[in-house]
Every structure is written in C-alpha cells, then in structure tokens.
C-alpha cells in the first residue's frame, strides 16, 4: 500500500510542478487567516517566497477555521484557510474557490508520560462527555482526567466532535484553548492532560492514542482506516489576485508538497485528489 502511494506521489510530482521563479515577477501582499493546523506549512512557504522576492509581503494569522471563512468571505484577507469543507450556509453566503492541499488526521493525545496508550472510541466519547473522569477507568493511574478542547470556531473541533461524539453534549469541565499549538502546549505540560490535535502537530512532547486499535498516522488517515480525518483547504474569492493564485500553485507544487510532508501532513493536488479516496 505504501509503495503505491509513494509512487503515486512521485508520478504527481513529475506531472505538476511550479517553482519559486514565478514569484520574481510579482509584487504585493497576501494576507492569510484561518485554521491553525495550516500555519507551519504556510509559514515556511511564505518565508521561501519572501526570500526570493522581498517586495512581496505575506502575513499569516490564526483564529480558527471560522475566522478564515469569515474573513476571506468579507474580503478582509486574500486567502482563508479551513480544516474542513465549507458549511452549506457558508457556500451560500460567500462565493469562494476552494483548494484542498493536504490531508490531516486528528489524533487524541495525552501527555508523553502517560501510561495509557490506547482507547476505544466509546471511551473517548465517555471521557469527553464527562462520564469518565478518572484515568483509572481507562487503564491509567488513579488521578483525575484534565480535559482540553478547542474554541467554537475550530474546524479541528468540529471534525473531532462529529466523528467521535455522536451529537452528545460535551462536558462543561473542558478547558478551552484557542489553537492547535496551544492544545499541544497544554497537554505537553499537564501530566494528566488529554486533548485532540492535528496529527501534523504531534511530536515527542505528546503521545497520540491508538484509537480502536488503529494508530493515528497520516497513512492511516489517507487510506481511510483512521476515522478522524479532514482535508486542509485554502479558499479565495472567485477572482483571486494573481499573487494569491501563484502562492496556491506553489503550495500545490512539488516544492510545496515537500514542505507539507516535512511538517507531517499528507499532500494533495488536483490530480492526486481524483485518485485518492
């Protein structure tokens, strides 16, 4: 399976491809806002572009996927990013072009020192709805579970809740953090902490939980085995600026895909998108 994907990647790499030279002839600003999962990738891409041509300025803001849609829809930024598809109301209200550029899974994470390594989705559900409040019920120590969650605007939260919560109400005891980075920080520093994170953000400071026996890796996410998955999108108005379009093409290009992989996500581009599940 792996070989198939790698060769597919190679194939796509050969087919598509634009480099940084395109940016030499451009000038201007790109303002980006939205999901926090995208930030590491976009930041590196932006840095590359600005190094090549310093008359271009790219600013990146977070705020969550909700902000991304709202701002690009209102014309406040050039590119809005989300970690989910647009809602029907959003599609109706704003005329936007959407570009999916990566696949990302969402892992349940606990502190690196936590004994617990795997959970069933029922257990996760019970923990997040407040029915289970102590680690001892899921194989850990006798200590309270410190739950972390995301704010309303977060697509990471939307996808997580839709996949695992079945519409039940989330516990009021949840500590709310405002981005993927903040979530990682919080769980990494709290021995008894548990939260959910974009797989691309997972590193040594936190441990991802095997869910129903499936390891949360990007491979499993792409193949569909791991259930909590979403695509990362960039959205622009129907008529994006030439510079924005160039930037998006860059992200979709070979170099862009390298950046995406390097940051832990699984890249997509229009061709591959047709083939992958």
């Amino acid at each position, binding site marked *: 399976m792996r070989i198939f994907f790698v060769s597919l990647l190679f194939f796509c790499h050969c087919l598509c491809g634009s480099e940084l030279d395109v940016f030499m002839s451009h000038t201007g600003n790109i303002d980006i806002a939205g999901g926090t999962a995208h930030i590491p990738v976009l930041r590196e891409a932006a840095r590359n572009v600005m190094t090549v041509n310093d008359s271009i300025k790219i600013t990146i803001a977070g705020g969550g996927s909700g902000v991304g849609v709202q701002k690009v829809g209102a014309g406040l930024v050039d590119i809005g990013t989300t970690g989910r598809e647009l809602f029907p109301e*959003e599609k109706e209200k704003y005329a936007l072009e959407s570009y999916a550029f990566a696949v990302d899974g969402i892992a349940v994470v606990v502190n690196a020192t936590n004994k617990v390594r795997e959970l069933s989705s029922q257990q996760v559900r019970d923990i997040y709805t407040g029915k289970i409040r102590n680690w001892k019920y899921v194989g850990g120590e006798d200590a309270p579970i410190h739950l972390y969650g995301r704010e309303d605007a977060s697509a990471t939260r939307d996808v997580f809740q839709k996949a695992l919560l079945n519409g039940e109400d989330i516990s*009021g005891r*949840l500590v*709310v*953090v*405002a981005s993927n980075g903040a979530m990682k920080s919080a769980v990494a520093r709290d021995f008894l902490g548990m939260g959910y994170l974009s797989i691309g953000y997972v590193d040594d400071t936190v441990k991802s939980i095997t869910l129903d026996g499936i390891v949360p890796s990007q491979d499993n996410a792409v193949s569909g085995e791991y259930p909590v998955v979403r695509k990362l999108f960039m959205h622009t108005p129907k008529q994006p600026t030439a510079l924005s379009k160039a930037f998006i093409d860059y992200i979709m290009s070979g170099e862009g895909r390298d950046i995406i992989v390097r940051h832990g996500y699984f890249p997509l581009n229009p061709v591959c998108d047709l083939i992958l599940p």
Partner: protein
Amino acid sequence: MFVVALFAFLFYFSKPLIGEVMAWHWQPEHGHYGLFIMIIGSFLASVLAVLLALPISIGLASFAVVSKRKIVLEIIYVMTSVPTIVYAFVAAIILVPFLRSCFIEGTGYSWLATSLMLAMLVLPTMTLTIYNGLNTRYRHYQTTTTSLGLTINQTLLWVIMPLLGKDIITATLLGFSRAIGDTILALVLSGNALHLPNALWDSMRTMTAHIVLITGGNTQDIGYNAIFIIGLLLFVISIAINSLLYRWRRG
C-alpha cells in the same frame, strides 16, 4: 461624541439578541446563547480579586504612612507600570503548574489563579488610593493626636480608619472595575471552561475572555452578536461605577 457613538453601535448590535441571552447554556450548536455563565464568572473572579486585594492594600497603605522608608511606595509605583500581559505570562508559567500540583482535580487554569493575579493587578491602584486618603488625613490630624500622646498606629487605627469609608469604597470600586474589564488575565488563566466553577481550583470563563474566543466564529451565527451584548454590558457597568465614583467625589 465618541461615547454616544460607541453606545449607539453597541446597542444596535445587541438588539437582536437581548431576549435570548438570559440563559444558562452556551451551546451555539443547539441554539443556546446563554451568557449567565460568563457574567457570573466575571463577577466571581473580580469580587474574589478585590476581596483578596483590599486587606493587603489597607495594610500596605498604612505601612507606607507609618514607616519613614519610601521603599514600599516605590515598589507599588513600579507595579503600576507592569503591563497586564506580563502578569499573565508569569502566572501561566509559575502559578498554574503550582496550583495544578496543589489541587490535583483542577488543571491549574482556575478561578483562583485568575483572581490571584487580578488581585496583584488592582493592588497598586487600590493601595495608592487608600494611601492618598490616609496621608492627607493623617497630615491633618497629626499634630492634634501626637499632642494627645497617641502613637502613629493608634492614630491611624482609631482616628483615621473610621473616616476612610469613602476612600475604601472608591478603592474597591476602582479595583472592581479594573478587574472585571480585564481580558488577558482571564483569557490565559481561567481555563475558559463553559461552566460555573465548583471550587476555587476549577476552571471558568469570563465575559471578556468570551469576547475574544467568539470573535473567531461565524458572523452569520446570531451567537456572534453576543459579543456586542457583552460589550454593552461591560460598558454599562463601567459607566455605572464611574457615576458612583463621581457622585462620591462630589459629596
């Protein structure tokens, strides 16, 4: 002028939501837009902060009047110039883990953490207000009481304190208004949990933090307008406190 414009805008935007907001649950997915939790959260944090700060500011102000050394005052003055964000930074790194290890049930991001730092925030202003009150009065009564043989402590305690009522109330109101309007400390330290804290170490959410968390959301959602209601509420509260103070100073 500005104020009228401000008022007008806030009022206009909160119109759609005024009825629905008086409820307990904030769950936009279910159409609940209740802000009670946040409002009470703000009050809880601010009241506790002022309660913590008041005795200490009275003590400090008295000390400053009594002692010959100016060091305490200087420290207080320096404290007034510390940005709020610095208090939040320091607390997040030190206080939160500490509270987490003390009260294992809570994550450290709690009511107590928020109030403690808010208390530190308002302490300088409150102390200075009380100090000014003490000082002017002391100068006034100084000769009389010393000639009667009273020590400084006794003077302060029996003669001046009773007169301080107005100043103490001013200080309290100032501290409270500063505390309730503060955003950063609450955002970073309270945990932003959507429920009333069951205990001091439990997490909660304030109105101010709620505004920041919501501005990320859907503009379509009527819930968005909640930030304007909160803004209006905060504005009204500050106007109320200011009016009280104004009338107090006149009287």
